Structure formats: structure tokens, C-alpha cells
């Protein structure tokens, strides 16, 4: 095969994620690259500016591990599961971790990724006037709309050094298919200078090509593909497993105690060699509990073209990049 981008999680992180980089880890409560974040912690990669619209326990973990210098975000609670205490301690000056927060609304973060993906100088958004957020974040600025003459707020493009997303499946080239809640997976991938994708399964080319509209990220922009079952756990993957609600609730309890997250990391992340060992420690009982049944989509007809066609030499090879 001309372009096989499949690698190991350790290899992908070691190759592309370096200290001091800006790294986006996206997945809006679904398709979350949790395993990739754990690998960053195992490799002790520090001084990162982490971009994540809606924070979750992954951010508590990366902060406790000393990986985070800055955080670019629009929501810093633990979904429906209470506070992120490690992050709160850092922001409230109650820990020796210092995290510089670059804060937006969801609309602002989305606009930043979209501008980054399209290589625009900025993106207008009609929602910051009157908020205190522009007063504490110099990156949110007003400009004059040249058509109406009114002021409109703009945010700068966000182009992470590395964008990391999780998805259901990909082929070996890195054509990524996802379904369910898609969040900003496509936009953050196109915005990234490098792109790492972890997937539940690597599938044959035929599977991808039977449904090209399901491909949200084409292989041209992908640098590394990693097969990583349960890579989003404890967040869900549509059609593969449910969310571990109990763990989300327990997290806020455990992280409340100073040192609680660090001790958890010692056992579950720094104490395991890789994602497989982590899953073994979580236990098969938990994974059984999160199983989902089948709700298959109906097939669509892409149309088999019956008109005569010339032979296409090399049609099964990838076009050069």
C-alpha cells in the first residue's frame, strides 16, 4: 500500500507531540481521545498548551501530571458530574500548578477552529458585546463591519501544532469515519498542523468507500492512525459503548482531595505500560456494563454506474499527495 499511516499510540505521540506545543484534544463528550491523553502523561510531555472546548477529567489528569502550561477552553466543568477540582485548585491559586487560561464561549472556540481550518485571519461572531470576557481576553476584539459600519467581535484562528481526535473507524491510509455527535472533529482536524486519529477499529478500504459521505476527515490531512479500542472511555462511542456515568461522578469526589488525581495517575496511567494494561486494570466487568446493542442505519444507494467507462490504470493506488 502506498500510504499506510497506521502506527502505535506510543509511536504517534512520541513522533508528533513535543514539549511546548499547542495540542488540541477534541471530542464533545463523545469520541474523546482519552487514551491519547494518557499516553502524553506516560511520556511526561510538559509545557503544553491544551485546547479543549468542553473540559472533562482528562484535563484534571493532564494538569496533575504537570503536562499543562496553558488551557484554551470554553467550558471547564465536568459535564454533568460536578467540578474539575484539580483545574479549580490551579485557577484559584490553591496548588503549585499554574495554568494560563485562554477563555472563550463555545461559539468563540468553534469560530477559532473554523478560521484555523480555512486559514482565515479572524472570524466574526455576534455575541461578545457587553460580556466581561473581552475585558479579560485581549484576543476577543471588535472590528468594524465594512458593509454595515457596525462593530462586530472577532476571534483569531486556532491552528494547533497537533490535533488529536477519536473516531469510530478509519482505513489504513487515514480516511476517518464517524457518526453520532460530531462536535468539531472535522474542523479541529483541518485546523491542526499535524493530525493524530485514534479509532475503535481499522477497517478495509472497501468499508470506507462503500459510504464516502460518512468520512469526516480525509487521509490527505492525517499523519497517524492508531487502532485503539475503548480509546474514548469513560466517554462513549456511538454504536460501540456507553458512557461510564458512575466514573464521571466518582471523579469529582476523588479529585476533591489534594493529591487524589496524582495517586490515581500512579495506579492507572503511570502504573500501566499502555492502553491495553489500563483497560485490563479498569476490568472487563466495567466494559461489559457499557455494551450497546445494534441499531443499524439503513443502507443508501450511491448508484452503480452503468455507462461504459475506460479502463483506469492504477485506479487502486492512491493519488500522490
Amino acid at each position, binding site marked *: 500500500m502506498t500510504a499506510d499511516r497506521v502506527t502505535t499510540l506510543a509511536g504517534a505521540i512520541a513522533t508528533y507531540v513535543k514539549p511546548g506545543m499547542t495540542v488540541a484534544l477534541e471530542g464533545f463528550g463523545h469520541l474523546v481521545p482519552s487514551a491519547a491523553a494518557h499516553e502524553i502523561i506516560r511520556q511526561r510531555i510538559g509545557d503544553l498548551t491544551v485546547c479543549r472546548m468542553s473540559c472533562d477529567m482528562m484535563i484534571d489528569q493532564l494538569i496533575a501530571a504537570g503536562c499543562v502550561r496553558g488551557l484554551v477552553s470554553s*467550558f471547564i466543568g465536568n459535564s454533568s458530574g460536578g467540578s474539575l477540582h484539580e483545574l479549580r485548585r490551579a485557577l*484559584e491559586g490553591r496548588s503549585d500548578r499554574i495554568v494560563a487560561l485562554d477563555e472563550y464561549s463555545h461559539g468563540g472556540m468553534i469560530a477559532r477552529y473554523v478560521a484555523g481550518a480555512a486559514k482565515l485571519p479572524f472570524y466574526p461572531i455576534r455575541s461578545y458585546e457587553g460580556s466581561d470576557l473581552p475585558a479579560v481576553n485581549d484576543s476577543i476584539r471588535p472590528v468594524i463591519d465594512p458593509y454595515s459600519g457596525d462593530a462586530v467581535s472577532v476571534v483569531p484562528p486556532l491552528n494547533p501544532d497537533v490535533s488529536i481526535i477519536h473516531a469510530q473507524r478509519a482505513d489504513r491510509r487515514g480516511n476517518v469515519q464517524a457518526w453520532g455527535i460530531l462536535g468539531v472533529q472535522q474542523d479541529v482536524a483541518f485546523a491542526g498542523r499535524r493530525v493524530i486519529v485514534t479509532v475503535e477499529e481499522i477497517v478495509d478500504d472497501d468499508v470506507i468507500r462503500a459510504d464516502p459521505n460518512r468520512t469526516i476527515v480525509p487521509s490527505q490531512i492525517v499523519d497517524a492512525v492508531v487502532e485503539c479500542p475503548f480509546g474514548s472511555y469513560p466517554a462513549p462511542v456511538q454504536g460501540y459503548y456507553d458512557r461510564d456515568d458512575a466514573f464521571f461522578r466518582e471523579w469529582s469526589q476523588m479529585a476533591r482531595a489534594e493529591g487524589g488525581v496524582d495517586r490515581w495517575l500512579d495506579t492507572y496511567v503511570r502504573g500501566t505500560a499502555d492502553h491495553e494494561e489500563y483497560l485490563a486494570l479498569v476490568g472487563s466487568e466495567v466494559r461489559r456494563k457499557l455494551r450497546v446493542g445494534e441499531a443499524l442505519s439503513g443502507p443508501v444507494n450511491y448508484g452503480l454506474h452503468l455507462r461504459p467507462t475506460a479502463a483506469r490504470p492504477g485506479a487502486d493506488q492512491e493519488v500522490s499527495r
Partner: protein
Amino acid sequence: MSGPATITELLTVLAARELAGRRVVFAGIGLPTLAAALAELTVAPDIEIIYESGVTGAHPAGLPTTISDSILVTGAEAVLPMPQLFGYVIQGQRIDTGFLGAAQIDRHGSLNSTMIGGSYARPEHRLPGSGGAIEVMAHAREVFVVMRRHTPQTLVDRLDFVTSPAPGSGRQATGGGVTRLITPLGVLTREEDELVLSSVNPGVDIAQVRSATGWPLKVAGTVDDGEPPTAEELRLLREVLDPGRIYLR
């Protein structure tokens, strides 16, 4: 469970009644979702919930535990990526009623969900921040706010931080701002530019609401005595919508 309504049940019932006639509602998980579901069974049969995660026309087989719960997707009418949800649906002014929560609200309906006490750089209590609240406030035709506590520290004269400003007279926002504030003590409705007391909950008097409010509270021409939840409303909540008491706990 039987017996009198809990605070959560009371707030849910009051919110559901206010949804009468509304159609496209932006709701988070928890009380707003339950209120919308109760409204669908009672006063707003055509209601459609839009979730921040991009799911519209959800028909979940059970109660979702978060807005990104995959149970919302299975059987849903549509799932939109977030740039489309925020760009076309919210900023595109397709939301009739948005539900928002906050730690603090002022008399004009501006909200704080960012921090309490200290400074932004070193807050005493750091809260989750905007999420999509700034956009919903800016562009929903109207916004309902439910506060679980009604005290001078939650209904305040001056917000510690203005996260989501009332649309007001600016040129960017297109929305209508907060039209209903539902609290354990009563319902405030907007008159002119200010939230005023329009009904008191059972067992509550006006003086009590005034002293629990951080600004000099005005009252509407007539202040209604809020109807307590009916037996039927409580039955629907307890037996049909949330029998496992996931949100009613």
C-alpha cells in the same frame, strides 16, 4: 414516591407551564429537559428540543444523562456538527426559547457563570464558564432562567462577572433576553427592561421575596398566587418521565 412536591419538582412544573405554546426550545440536561418533556405532555405538544451537542428531534429510549449521551442520537431526527448548530441554528436565530442556568442573575437578566469573589485572575470560586450560554443569550428569541436558590447572593445588584449579557441595546445580539426567572420563591417576568415579581409560590409572601432579592424588587400590577403542582403533573414527572429519579433526586 408520593407526598408534596420537592423544590426540583416545583421548579420543573413551573418551568413546564411557562413553555405553553413554545416550539423550538434549547435545553440542557436535567431540569430543563424534564420541564420540556412535561410541557410536551401537557401545555406544548409541538415542542422540539435542541441540544448543545447538535441533536435535534431526539426520541431517546430513556433519560439522557448528559447532552452528549449517545442515547440522544439513536432514533433522533437530526445530528448537526457544532459549527452548524452554533452558526446556523443559534446565531441564525432559530431558537424560540433557550434555557440557561447561572450562579448569579441581575435585574436586567444578565448572567454570571464564570466566577464568584476575588478577581478573574484569582477567583475565590471558579465556575464552569460560558459554554454556549453567551450565544444562546445573544440570539434566542427569549430565555428562561431557573435558579435553585433565591438569595441576595444569587439575585444580585451587581454581578461578580458578566458572562452572558442581556442583549439590551447593543448592535450584535439579536435575541430577546430573559423573559422568565423561576426560583423556589416565585416567578419573575420582564417588564420594560427589568425583572419584576409576577407570581409567588405556595406559602411565600411578597415581603419574603423582596428580602431575598439583592436589588429593590418591583412587583407586577397583580402578583398571582402560584398554583402548586397538580396531582397529574406530579404523577407524570414521577411515574412517566423520571421513575428512576435521575433528575428528581
